[in-house]
């Protein structure tokens, strides 16, 4: 293959950016993606059998016959030349390696938290903190109910002061939009300080 003269750009194609929607299993990630996406959320699956999996991992998985890990995502066209993708990350943190570039180059992330079991989102918070990926916390109320003020949840999650904690309803478009805007505002504030 010559390979040297392959075209690596298409000027008519839009720029693309992405935001990750993370959090524990069943916390409402796909619901949130669906609430703000202009398309019905799409799903792509990777077979779990290929590289990198430890024997222990495979053992458990085979029993459940779950041989793929799914990734759900949606799209928001920001303008004619800019498209934002929202990726609902796999609930099980240890499967993130299936998409090497999932977190790479993301603008930031929303960590969704279920107030009934906030610990299920600890791993996601750790993941972004350790990689220096900016994030906000969206507290997804069960049936829209919010029994705790954001500050109590901040304490429970032990997230630093500069990380916003917002109450939201993953089923509501406006509510999800506001969480995304809060993330971007946080990024803008950081950029202005820089």
């Amino acid at each position, binding site marked *: *293959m010559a*390979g040297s003269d*392959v*075209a*690596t*750009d*298409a000027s*008519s*194609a*839009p*720029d*693309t*950016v*992405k935001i990750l929607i993370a959090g524990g299993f069943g916390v409402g990630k796909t619901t949130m993606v669906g609430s*703000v996406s202009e398309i019905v959320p*799409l*799903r*792509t*699956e*990777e*077979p779990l*059998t*290929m*590289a990198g999996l430890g024997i222990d991992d495979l053992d458990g998985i085979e029993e459940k016959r779950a041989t*793929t890990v799914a*990734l759900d*995502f949606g*799209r*928001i*066209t*920001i*303008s004619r030349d*800019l*498209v*934002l*993708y929202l*990726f609902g990350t796999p609930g099980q943190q240890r499967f993130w390696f299936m*998409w090497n*570039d*999932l977190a*790479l*180059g*993301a*603008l930031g992330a929303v960590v969704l938290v279920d107030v009934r079991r906030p610990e299920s989102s600890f791993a996601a918070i750790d993941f972004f903190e350790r990689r*220096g990926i900016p994030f906000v916390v969206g507290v997804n109320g069960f049936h829209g109910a919010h029994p705790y003020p954001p500050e109590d949840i901040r304490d429970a999650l032990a997230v630093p002061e500069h990380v916003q904690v917002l109450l939201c309803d993953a089923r509501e*478009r*406006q509510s999800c*939009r506001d969480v*995304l*805007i809060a993330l*971007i*505002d946080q*990024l*803008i504030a*950081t*950029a*202005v300080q*820089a």
Partner: protein
Amino acid sequence: MGGGDSAGRLVRPFALTGGRTRPSRADFTLIATVTAVDPQPDAAARCQPEHTRILRLCAEPVAVAELAARLDLPVSVVAILLCDLLEAGRITVRPPRLVSRTAPDLDLLKKVRDGLGRL
């Protein structure tokens, strides 16, 4: 990895790639956009039905993840097929917008914010 015969387990989607499990280039990340070259170069060998389906789906620019979802194939498989098409001069690829933590792009962020505000 790489060799088709060493592993015990067969993963069906990779039959489409002739057993290759890794793309030959790293361009095809989730939100890289691909576009079919128009007009297509003269028909060459090695165009499987899946290649043809991809070309049809990327007549307009489309992200790799979206292609994979619409083809109902793993991203890793689609990336390998896209390598074939790129090397055959049948598609172009545009990498995602670069996001820098040390020098954030304020214009980009404001653009995203305005777009979200219009939702």
